[in-house]
C-alpha cells in the first residue's frame, strides 16, 4: 500500500510537470522554425509525452487496492534530512571553491563531511583530509594540468 500511494503521488507530480513542460516551457524556450516538417520542438514533445503518459499510467495502476490496510505513504522530511543537508552543502562547496580556491574549500569541506558521515576521530580525519586533498591536487592540477581558478587568497 505504501508503494502504491508513493506511486500515486509521484505519478501525479510527473503528470503535472509534463503538462507544464508541454504547454509552457517548450513553447517558451524552444524557438519554432517556420515551414519545416519536423522542428526542434518535435523530440522534446515526444519525450515529454512519454513521461506524462507514464505518470498517468502510474497513477491509474496505483488506484486499485489503495484503500487496503498497511503502512501509509507519508513524506517525512526528517527521514531525508541527511540527504538535504548533504545536497545543500555540496552546492555550497562548489561555490566555496570559486570563492576560496580548491585547496582551502576542499580541506574544510572534506573534514566536515567526514564528520557528517560518522568518522569521529578528529586527528585521523585531519590526516586523511590533508593527505587526500594533496594527492587529488597533485594528480589533477600538477599531473593532468587542470587549472582551478585561484580563490581570494590567490591559490
Amino acid at each position, binding site marked *: 500500500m505504501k*508503494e502504491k500511494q*508513493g*506511486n500515486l503521488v*509521484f505519478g501525479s507530480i*510527473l503528470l503535472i510537470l509534463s503538462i507544464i*513542460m508541454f504547454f509552457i*516551457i*517548450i513553447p517558451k*524556450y*524552444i*524557438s519554432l*522554425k517556420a515551414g*519545416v*516538417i*519536423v*522542428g*526542434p*520542438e*518535435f*523530440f*522534446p514533445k515526444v*519525450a*515529454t509525452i*512519454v*513521461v506524462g503518459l*507514464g*505518470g498517468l*499510467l*502510474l497513477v491509474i*495502476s496505483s488506484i486499485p487496492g489503495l484503500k487496503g490496510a498497511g503502512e501509509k505513504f507519508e513524506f517525512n522530511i526528517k527521514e531525508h534530512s*541527511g*540527504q538535504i543537508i*548533504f*545536497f545543500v552543502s*555540496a*552546492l555550497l*562547496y*562548489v561555490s566555496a*571553491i570559486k570563492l576560496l580556491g*580548491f585547496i582551502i574549500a*576542499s580541506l574544510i*569541506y*572534506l573534514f566536515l*563531511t*567526514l564528520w*557528517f*558521515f*560518522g*568518522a*569521529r576521530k578528529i586527528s585521523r580525519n585531519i590526516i*586523511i583530509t590533508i593527505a*587526500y*586533498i594533496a594527492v*587529488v591536487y597533485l*594528480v*589533477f592540477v600538477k599531473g*593532468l*594540468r*587542470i587549472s*582551478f581558478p585561484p580563490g581570494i587568497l590567490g591559490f
Partner: protein
Amino acid sequence: MNIGSILLEFTNVSVLIAIILGTVAGIIGGALPGISPSMTITLILPVTLYMEPIIAIAVLMSAYQGSMFGGSISAILINAPGTASAAATLLDGYPMASRGESKKALQTALYSSCVGGLIGTVILLFSAKMLAKVALKFGPPEYFGLMLLSFTLIAGISGTSMLKGTISGGIGLIIASIGMDPIYGSRRLSFGSLNLSSGIASLSVFIGIFALSEIFMQISDRGKGLDKVPEIYEGSESGLTLKEFLGQKWNLLTSGIIGSLVGILPGVGASTASFMAYAETRRRSKYPEKFGEGIIDGIVAAEAANNAVCSGALVPMLTLGIPGDTVTAILVGALITHGISPGPMLFVENIGAVYRVYIALFFGLVALSIIGSFGVPIFSKIIKIKKSILLPCVFVICIVGTYASRTNYFDCYVMIILGMLGYILRKQKFPLSPLVIAYIIGGSLEANLRRTIIMGEGGLGIFATKPLALFLIVVSIVMTVIMVRNNMKLKAKQEQATSN
C-alpha cells in the same frame, strides 16, 4: 594502419603503465561494495580526458576487466558482492572463504576471469568486423531502426518495473534534448543560459546519476554501519592447483561462450550471464548438490561468464554504436570525447581504434592475471576501508572529475542536481540505467528519425521502402513484447512468492 604497428604502440612504457594503473583502479573499484563497474569507469573517465586516445583506451579497457574481477573479492571475503555481476560468485566463494579457503577461491575467480575474458575477446575479434560490414549499408532510416532496437533494451534492464523504466528513459530523452538542435542548430530548453546552450555534459549525467545518487542513498545508513570495518575471513595458505584448474576446462569454455553471447545481446547484462552460466554448469555437473556449499565449479562458471560479457558487450557498441549495457554506454561517451565515434564507419575510417580496443582488452587480461596473482592479498585489505571515509573522498573526486571535463563549475551544480534526481528516482524504485542509456542514444535517435521524416517528405511511408529499417523496427517491437511478457511473468512469480 596495420595491427603490427598498433601492437608496437602497446610496448610504450606509458601505455603499459596505463594498463597497470587501469587494472589496479578497476580491481579496487570493483572490490569496494557500492562502487559498481559503471561507477568505477565513471570516476576514471575524467582522468582519461587529458590523455592520448591510446592511453585512455588502455586505461578504460583494463579498468573494465579489472572491475569485473574486483567484484568477486568482496563477494568471496565479506559475502557482499562488489558488483552485481559477482552475486553468483558469492554462492560458492563465501562458503569456501568461511572454510578458510579464501586464497583458493580468489585464485579461482582471478584465473577464471582471465580465461573468460580471453574467450570473449576472441569472439569479439571474429564477430565484430562481419557485423560492421552489414552495418555499412545503413542510412538514416536504418540507423533509426537500430537506435529503436537499442532503445528496447530499456525494457530488458527495467526488470519488473517496465513502466518506471520507460519513464526513466523519457527523462533521459528530455535531458538529451537540452542544448543545440541537431538539425537546425537552434537553442532548446537552455532557459537563456549560455552554459545550457551546449547541452548537459555527459560526465554530469554519469557521475550525478550513478555515483552521487549512491552516496545519497548511503547517507541513510549514517550512524548505523558506515563507520564499521567489514569483517573478513582470513584464508589458509592452500591455493588452487593447476590440475584443479585444468579440470574446469569445459566449464571455462562453455561459461565463457555463454558470457560472450549474453554480452552481445543488448540489455541483458553480466549478472544474468553469470547466473546463466552457473545454472548451466550445475545442470551438467555430476554433483549438483554440492553447488552452493563452496566448490570451485560455481566460481569458475560465474567469473568466466561475467568477464566474457565485457568483450561481448563491446560487439554492438563498436559495430553499431549502440551500448549493450550501462558500462558500454559510458564507454561510448568516453570514446566520442576522444574523437572516436563507435559505429560501422569506425571500421572504415578508424580501424586503428578498433584494433587498439582489442589489444587493450588482451593486455588488460594479461595485466589482470599478473597483478591479481601478486595483489589479491593487498586488494583484500582495501575492502576494509570504512564507508564513512570512502564516501566523502569519492564525492570530492566526483566534483573534481566533473569540473575537469569542461573546466566549468556549472557542470558541478548540474551533477549535484542530477544526483538528487537520481536519489529521488531510486527511492521511488525507478531504475536509473534506462535514463543514462536514453540520454546516450537520444541524440542519434532524434537526428535519424527527423532525417528519415524529412527524406520521406513528412511521412513515415519511407520505412516501407527500406526493408532493413522495417525489419529492425519489427524486431524492436517483437523484442519489446517478449521482454514485457517475461517481466510480467517474473512480477507475477514475485508477487506469488510474497503472498506465500
